[in-house]
């Protein structure tokens, strides 16, 4: 039995992790220095979720993938130039801040509202995917709140694998402590999965996929709903970079024997 899933992937736009990030205090609270100038990417774990969604859709005929993403319109436009070439999806864009200092509850409310507004959504076929944490707020809280708002109580976080059984049940591997995985069986959709790395490599850019996606991406960006995140009740006392510079002692002229002895003594100390 093959089920045609409706897979909604929640994502956000984040600064390229390779950039230097520096906090500043803006009129609305903490922000990043030159935030709008920083090159952006689709959040890495949300990207894994998107690739897994596309793979599942490919193997489940009739399935469809939506990407519901929150971020500034201009950043979305930049990010979609790459992401849209990876896998087929329909974009639902929300025009709002992508800052890590925004409140998870408010972000979840905006994402859940956007999901509920997708025409023809059938909860019995619904799988909500996302990254288990973002590279910005990094809280690992938003997806659970989205699930609650959608009434989904079969939720999984740190997912590395999803298998669909012949009867439509789901077998899910979640990361737990100590490098182990918990294996769970779920009766079927609806379910929410916060993905960790998964098992799929990043797909190569495919211009044909890009062409098809861009037909919906540009209109989606034009009608992106503005989202205001007030951060009500949240007060930051400080945001700072850690004092991380250590006085590194450089040992250049010792033999491997001597270095080994020194390290073993240090380990055993």
């Amino acid at each position, binding site marked *: 039995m093959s089920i045609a899933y409706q897979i909604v992937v929640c994502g956000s736009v984040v600064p390229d992790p390779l950039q230097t990030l520096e906090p500043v205090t803006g009129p609305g609270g903490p922000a990043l220095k030159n935030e709008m100038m920083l090159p952006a990417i689709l959040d890495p774990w949300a990207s894994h979720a998107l690739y897994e969604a596309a793979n599942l859709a490919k193997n489940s005929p009739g399935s469809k993938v939506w990407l519901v993403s929150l971020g500034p319109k201009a950043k979305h436009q930049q990010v979609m130039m790459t992401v849209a070439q990876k896998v087929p999806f329909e974009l639902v864009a929300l025009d709002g801040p992508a800052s890590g200092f925004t409140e998870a509850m408010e972000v979840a409310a905006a994402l859940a509202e956007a999901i509920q507004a997708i025409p023809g959504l059938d909860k019995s076929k619904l799988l909500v995917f996302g990254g288990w944490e973002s590279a910005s707020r990094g809280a690992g809280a938003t997806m659970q709140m989205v699930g609650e708002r959608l009434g989904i*109580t079969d*939720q999984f976080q740190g997912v590395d694998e999803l298998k669909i059984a012949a009867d439509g049940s789901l077998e899910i591997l979640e990361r737990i402590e100590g490098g182990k995985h918990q294996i769970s069986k779920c009766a079927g959709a609806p379910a929410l999965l916060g993905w960790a790395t998964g098992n799929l490599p990043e797909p190569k850019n495919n211009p044909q996929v890009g062409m098809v996606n861009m037909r919906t991406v540009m209109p989606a960006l034009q009608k992106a709903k503005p989202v205001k995140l007030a951060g009500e009740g949240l007060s930051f006392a400080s945001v700072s970079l850690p004092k991380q510079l250590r006085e590194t002692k450089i040992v250049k002229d010792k033999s491997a024997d001597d270095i080994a002895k020194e390290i073993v003594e240090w380990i055993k100390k």
Partner: protein
Amino acid sequence: METILLLAHTEADGSLAKSAREALRAARTLNQALAGSSLVVGLVGENVQAVADSIAACPATKYFGVAGKDFAQSRYASDAAAAEAICKSAQATIVVAPATSRWARVLPGVAQRLGGRADTHVTGVADAGGKPAISRWYYRQRMEATLTRAQRPWFILVDPGSQTACECGAGTAKIETVAVNLPDNCKRTTVVGIREPKADAQTIRPDAELLFVTGAGWTKKQADGQTHVPEAEKLIRGFLQLSRASLGSSKSLVDQSGEGQAVLSFLSHLNQIGQTGSTPRHPKGLSTCCHGEEPHTVGWRFINERRAISLDPNCGWARGKADVLYVADAFAVMGKINELLAARK
């Protein structure tokens, strides 16, 4: 007046994890700092009496418990129902819990149900002029913030390893049982097992004294113009067996498996530390053949003493980040280290 609830679950063997005692420490810190506050304990598991007794000497005024077979497994629907019921019974305004995989999965959702807020990866709690404040990291451990919140209940999930475990003694705790009747739609998911590496292949050890970080240099061409991946594997495996260190890896080394390059067979994304990996906490860290600048080095942000072995004296991973940088060939040094460790056995 704040009611501070320490919310914990039992482990598979019925015990209380060290991370729960660390969260208890944070809860007690808040309790002591906030005048007029009270501390209560909530427990979830198949049987909770033994766990409650094990911390009965702590200054909690009440103990709440949800127990039964349905609450033995780590499952969102049942855990959410149990946590929600305890929070309501305790009328908790602040909920302090260990950031275990089980609670991290469910408590933000419970905060949503109760109209509260949730903060995870919390590394410190304090009094900010009569109000509770927390410290946590943003942008993958690259900047630290201190914040307060007006909303209640406020769920505070404390990162394991960030607090000293509370060693309050045992006694007899009187538990107020909270009844939770799970409807069938909360039983759609069943935990069927745990997948773990074989004992001799276990490379992630959260409680290890030492984190051993391997970089992509192990699989690159060496001085003779050849790669020596099998030898690298033997050295690293040997060191892990002798030292009982936990193994971390740079992203570039883990990613090589997806790029068709030579890889260390025992490494997976679970070993990855840094930007899109974990940031483990260990007293000591030894990195070998690692390269890269700031974004990559957050992987050992929470390692206290750090040493590195690299052929590059200007290595951005080590300079200014490690306490000692040995400019040397890691193959030669690790071989000698293994000999010395083996001789000490």
